[in-house]
């Protein structure tokens, strides 16, 4: 299994813990992630300004992956929906593809034939590796920990671009992936609520208020943390958690982990290897439990 790793703008700068954990776990599971020189922004921030500009930006990234004969693995859910949606338009509407290709070749020298598939890393884990194999590979007991899963919006919606991958109103895939690590799933109210990240730059007060709603719901459970798969969601729940605590005079101190970090711990990697030190809200319990742990527990017990 080989994929072009599409990092987008936010992950490689603000979520290196996510990137490290994704690369390590992929390598462990036999998924080869290839870095292509030339990927730029997916087009998401350009869409409100010009749909054409966003399509061209997406098409340029897709065409680059196509040149290398690779399907695309994404880490950010906003990049995922932007690239998948643009891909669907370009694949299904040949007149649109012709028009976009004329403009694209003029400006970047590329053309996109429409042969690439784009999937989020969590979806690739679910569909290509599967919860069953992840359960078998999980060598570390995580049953003492419970997590609240946050799917986020663009991993599931708009559902029609994902061809029936999961049910947007009652999803199970990410929950299955968390359960496969052996950790407990902690249900909470309004699991499908949006993080508010889409309007953080336009109306921060409203955006933080939206994020607060979910933190309130998770806070009253006995979850050891939240699991996310999108850097925007993490920015809202983790990086802005302190701002929300100050602004609304509340206290959460709720750790937020990227799913591959949790998976890596289950596969036997240490807290350090999964870069838990880069998480803004530290999980003392997880760091304590997984520091100094050998990467291959089986081999360590032999020694």
């Amino acid at each position: 299994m080989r994929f072009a790793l599409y990092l987008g703008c936010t992950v490689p700068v603000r979520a290196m813990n996510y990137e490290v954990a994704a690369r390590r776990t992929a390598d462990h599971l036999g998924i080869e992630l290839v870095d292509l020189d030339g990927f730029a922004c997916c087009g998401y921030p350009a869409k409100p300004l010009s749909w054409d500009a966003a399509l061209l930006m997406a098409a340029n990234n897709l065409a680059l992956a196509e040149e290398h004969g690779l399907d695309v693995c994404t880490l950010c859910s906003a990049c995922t929906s932007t690239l998948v949606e643009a891909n669907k338009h370009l694949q299904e509407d040949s007149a649109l593809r012709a028009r976009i290709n004329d403009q694209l070749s003029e400006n970047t020298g590329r053309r996109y034939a429409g042969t690439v598939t784009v999937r989020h890393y969590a979806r690739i884990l679910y569909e290509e590796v599967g919860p069953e194999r992840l359960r078998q590979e999980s060598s570390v007991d995580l049953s003492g920990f419970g997590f609240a899963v946050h799917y986020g919006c663009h991993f599931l919606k708009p559902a029609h671009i994902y061809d029936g991958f999961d049910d947007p109103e009652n999803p199970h895939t990410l929950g299955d992936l968390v359960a496969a690590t052996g950790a407990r799933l902690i249900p909470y109210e309004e699991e499908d609520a949006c993080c508010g990240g889409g309007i953080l730059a336009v109306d921060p007060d409203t955006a933080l208020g939206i994020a607060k709603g979910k933190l309130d719901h998770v806070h009253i459970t006995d979850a050891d943390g939240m699991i996310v798969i999108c850097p925007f969601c993490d920015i809202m729940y983790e990086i802005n958690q302190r701002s929300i605590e100050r602004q609304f005079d509340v206290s959460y101190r709720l750790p937020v982990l990227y799913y591959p970090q949790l998976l890596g711990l289950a596969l036997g990697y240490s807290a350090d290897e999964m870069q838990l030190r880069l998480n803004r809200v530290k999980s003392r319990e997880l760091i304590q439990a997984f520091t100094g742990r050998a990467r291959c527990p089986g081999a360590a017990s032999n020694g």
Partner: protein
Amino acid sequence: MPETRERIIDVGDLEPNFRNEILAEPGGERFMRCFSCGTCVAGCPVAGMTEKYNPRRIVRMALLGMRQEVLASEFVWLCSTCYTCYERCPQDVHIPDLMNAIRNIAVREGHVPPAFRQQAELLRDHGRLYEITNYENQRRQEAGLPPIQERGDEVRRILVRSGVLEEVES
């Protein structure tokens, strides 16, 4: 009562052709289907937090032809694109696409909120939302990650080609 008078819509100010403008814009094709049920508002995380944003009201304003009020508004920029309404709308209006269509028209009329102007400038200069300097690549190296090379030139040409920079820089 001047307050009431201010809330009266003068039909002489309406631009009935606004609906055709929206229908012709990618993403706006379905907006005439709306029968005002309010399912979008009921599930909207933004509307739940602030009265500033109300998708049903925006659709009515657009249908009435309140062109200037809609295009110059702050509210069309408040859709968080969570797609909750998109999944639930019984008429498949595709409201996030509609908001995007209205935003695209607003931009061509010179209405670009500062946050989006800033993002467009970053895309123009770096091809991405976060600049990659030696500092970022050094931090990446410390985490054992490969360096990132900025490729701003292609994105800049795309933005010029689609007229975005003209609106942003004006």
